[in-house]
């Protein structure tokens, strides 16, 4: 069987591709809006201003890492906390490294000034739209930009009602909102389930994180557990 990318078109840009990319992201927009509402609610509870919340959504545009960053957030921030935030964020978003690598066979032929700006709009949703489109053997790079812009617009807009809701709730513990992050992640976990083989690495991550949470202060247990699980995952498959 021939690799689909061998006979796929070279990358190019079209204006209708922008609209088609936005259209193709449609099925993923409700989930994006819900995630943004959740983030807005938590941000309000953590005492972020509405302007900072919107700014964070607009500039960072990576929900899971934003939720984790909020857990480690303090006001004001020390230099040490800033360094922790950078590391936590890079670890949580390390999956984008793999996604970017997977885009290289399609978009690598474009000049750097054309491809790096749309790459900054990479999220799980943008990437899924792009890879589904590429699997059809077509090459319009505007699909990626169009999908990214549509998802970004929904992500930025939906945070406002979420924030207002969060600011309105006076006792977050009563509604379980302090557990929003693990509950949201538990729902996400079922969607990224890919069979028991990869789950061995996940189990290692859980056990190591639990131990690290007892031994190390702060939010390092996420980084320590995730790296341990990831290394285990990288080696366990070799036994197959």
């Amino acid at each position, binding site marked *: 069987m021939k690799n689909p990318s061998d006979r796929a078109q070279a990358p190019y840009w079209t204006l209708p591709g922008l609209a088609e990319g936005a259209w193709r992201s449609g099925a993923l927009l409700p989930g994006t809006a*819900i995630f943004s509402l959740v983030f807005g609610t938590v941000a309000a509870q953590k005492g972020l201003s509405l302007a*900072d919340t919107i*700014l*964070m959504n607009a500039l*960072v545009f990576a929900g899971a*890492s934003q939720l984790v960053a909020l857990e480690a957030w303090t*006001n*004001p*921030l020390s230099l*040490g906390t800033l360094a922790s*935030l*950078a590391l936590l*964020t*890079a*670890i*949580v*978003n*390390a999956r*984008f*490294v*793999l*996604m*970017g*690598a997977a885009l*290289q066979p399609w*978009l690598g032929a474009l000049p750097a000034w054309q491809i790096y700006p749309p790459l*900054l709009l*990479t999220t799980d949703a943008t990437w899924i739209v792009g890879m589904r489109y590429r699997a059809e053997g077509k090459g319009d790079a505007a699909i990626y930009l169009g999908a990214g812009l549509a998802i970004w617009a929904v992500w930025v807009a939906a945070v406002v009602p979420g924030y207002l809701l969060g600011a309105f709730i006076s006792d977050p513990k*009563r509604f*379980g909102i302090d*557990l*929003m992050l*693990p*509950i*949201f*992640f*538990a*729902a*996400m*976990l*079922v969607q*990224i389930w890919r069979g028991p083989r*990869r789950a061995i690495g*996940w189990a*290692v*991550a*859980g056990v*190591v*994180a*639990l131990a690290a*949470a007892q031994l190390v202060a702060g939010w390092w247990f*996420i980084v320590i*557990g*995730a*790296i341990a*699980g*990831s*290394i285990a*995952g990288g*080696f366990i498959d070799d036994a197959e």
Partner: protein
Amino acid sequence: MMPNEMQFGPFAGILVIALATYFTRVFGFWAMGHVPMTLRVRRMLETLPGAIVIATIVPLMFRAGVPGVIGIAATLGCMVLRRNEFLAVALGLASVSAARALGL
């Protein structure tokens, strides 16, 4: 003032996490154009999203005690049976509230 006593506002924090995120977005694309990615690194990166999620859930769940365990179990169960993210999160939050109201 010593460097470790320096303090920053929210904007600095937003900028730092934005730049860290941009780095992850362009690094893999750039690296693939320059060095081949080994199978082992690929597998590690494939395991990473789930590992992050588990490493976050497990300690926070146990830290929250019985309501935490009930809430996570309800979310997972609902998600497996109904595949509806919104419903699963709502049920998870409701379970935590109910467990706390009952004093568990």
